[in-house]
């Protein structure tokens, strides 16, 4: 009724191979884009922007990045926080060194720097596999955080050791610094999210994506059928780190504005993004968004219910949040190892047949 592919005839290969071959999906996607770009900015206020929308958008980019590495290429990484820190510090150095350049280029530049660092820390993945690699990426996490704490050049010798985003504009609209309008922040992040998702979707369904998935499913077999593991693994690290760097740059410059590296980019952040892609669904673009939305919304919701409605102390709410996140992860792994994305797929399958299930 709501979701049919009947009457959808592809007459060209191009039409058949497009991202959303089913008309309903395509229109749904356009509708979401229209709402996100055209409607939300007019209604967004500071609370919604800072508590929900902007963290969601930024984490969605990070989750996309990690999903490419872990979900598509099968290389588990616990260094996300460290790579986000690279993005944040890179954008800070670029912003302060080249104030005349548009910040959008700085964010992309920060992504490129992070991609370089990611490739460097991805090199051992050619020898180390599985858990060993997961633990090896911890080296990146701890070393990078330590580096940004200890080398004053990175934080421009500021007395507090913090980095603070200066005010920058895009087309005359302020997007960073304390005087930013909620809608401007939101739109700035949204553009990056849109570009990243588009890039990720098209990379993963192209030759790169197929190579990554071959490596994920079995790297030796992939090597035998002609996938060059060096190129495949390192490109996954590069693309993934690029995304994570962009998200770190936005996280610092647009969302927080001032950052202390151990607090903002600690190991907890790595786990948070990992949970997003587990709950959302490994190897799924939609899953990255779903997982990010879920883990951003849930604490806000819990806090509103437990603290706001029931009047419990905040520390209790935090403990419950930990328990619920943990329990959810385990539940998801037991009931639906493929995450929210799989639930969505199943729902679509059901909707196609509804109301006649046979």
């Amino acid at each position, binding site marked *: 009724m709501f979701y049919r592919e009947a009457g959808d005839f592809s007459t060209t290969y191009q039409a058949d191979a497009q991202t959303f071959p089913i008309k309903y999906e395509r229109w749904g996607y356009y509708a979401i884009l229209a709402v996100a770009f055209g409607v939300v900015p007019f209604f967004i206020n500071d609370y919604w922007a800072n508590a929900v929308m902007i963290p969601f958008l930024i984490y969605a980019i990070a989750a996309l990045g990690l999903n490419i590495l872990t979900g598509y290429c099968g290389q*588990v990484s616990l260094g996300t926080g460290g790579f986000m820190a690279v993005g944040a510090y890179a954008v800070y150095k670029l912003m302060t060194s080249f104030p005349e350049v548009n910040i959008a280029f700085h964010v992309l530049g920060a992504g490129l720097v992070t991609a370089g660092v990611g490739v460097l820390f991805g090199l*051992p993945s050619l*020898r*180390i*596999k*599985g*858990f*060993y690699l*997961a*633990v*090896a990426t*911890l*080296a990146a*996490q*701890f*070393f990078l*955080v*330590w580096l940004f*704490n*200890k*080398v004053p050049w990175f934080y421009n010798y500021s007395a507090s050791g913090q980095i603070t985003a200066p005010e920058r504009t895009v087309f005359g609209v302020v997007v960073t610094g304390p005087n930013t309008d909620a809608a401007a922040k939101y739109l700035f992040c949204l553009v990056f999210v849109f570009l990243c998702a588009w890039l990720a979707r098209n990379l993963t369904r192209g030759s790169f994506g197929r190579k990554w998935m071959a490596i994920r499913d*079995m790297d*030796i*077999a992939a090597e*035998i059928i002609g996938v060059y593991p060096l190129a495949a693994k390192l490109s996954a690290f590069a693309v993934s780190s690029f995304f994570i760097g962009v998200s770190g740059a936005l996280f610092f410059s647009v969302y927080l504005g001032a950052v202390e590296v151990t607090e903002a980019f600690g*190991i907890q952040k790595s*786990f948070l993004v*990992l*949970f997003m892609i*587990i709950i959302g669904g490994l190897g799924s673009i939609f899953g990255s968004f779903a997982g990010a939305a879920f883990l951003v919304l849930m604490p806000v919701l819990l806090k509103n219910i437990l603290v706001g409605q029931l009047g*419990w*102390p905040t*520390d*209790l709410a*935090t*403990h*419950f*949040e*930990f*328990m*619920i*996140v*943990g*329990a*959810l*992860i*385990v539940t998801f*792994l*037991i009931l639906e*190892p493929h995450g929210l994305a799989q639930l969505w797929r199943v729902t679509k399958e059901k909707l196609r047949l509804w109301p006649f299930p046979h």
Partner: protein
Amino acid sequence: MPDQLLYAIEVTLNGLMAGVLYSLVALGFVLIFKASGIFNYAQGVMALFSAMTLVGIMDGQVPFSHLINAIFGTDIHHFGWHVPAIVAILLTAVVMTAFAWAVNQVIFKHLVNQEPIILFMATIGLAYFLEGFGDLMWGSDIKSLDVGLPQGGSFWIEENTAWLGGEGFYGFFIDQLDMVATVVAVILVAVLVAFSQYTKQGRALRAVADDHQAALSVGISLSYIWVLVWSIAGFVALVAGIMWGTKSGVQFSLSLIALKALPVLMLGGFTSIPGAIVGGLIVGVGEKLFEFLVGPMIGGATENWFAYVLALIFLVFRPQGLFGERIIERV
């Protein structure tokens, strides 16, 4: 002897002692990994939880008192009794056994035959849950743990080694607690080895570690072995929790020692008990010496990452660790 060398020796000795503490945590990992192929990230939180439970029982805290107070508006905190350390330790061991049983019933029974990485992520979820649960049960404030272990520097060693150096050298400073920890670790390893070599359960455990299906087919109950091995790991976590808790207080950071145990495991190999010990010692000595020799030149606090980078470099040359089984891959 020149003082600098003596300091280096002192640092090495302290590193060995710290390494023993790392090994204690790593041991728990190895036990579970060998028996069930689960890489148990929650081991550190288990140490934290057991230490919290121990303190809670000893002080007679009311479990979930925060929650009860928040819901019913009451104001209760303590039962008002004090339990002797040894009884409290036994009670905590019972709690950890119950925990092991619950974990297997609720989680891992449903995850049989899943990929290792799924199991690993499940234990991360478990770690989060247990962390929140522990805080909810016993409160998240920093507690001091005192089960009667000696603390502070050993004067005997200081007095008897002072003659080695010159005027400014007062002898080696070695924490008594570290020495106790070493003795306990040695006893623990001996007991574990004896258990796995000379008892029926121990043999069953090794059989399961060797081959799940073969073990099943000769009539070994897998679920029993898993509960057993998680209980043992819980007990090891308790020992580690007591040592670390006495040393630095029972607090959240205790769960982070699990992260420190990971490079230890990588160095030693995930499947080897001696590997866990040797890896712990290498990491302990390595990071202390590096901090002592190189640290001042590059800003200090290198202990945060040295172990991981060491393990990373080491693994590039020997991917299975020092004592790990050779990795053979087939298509």
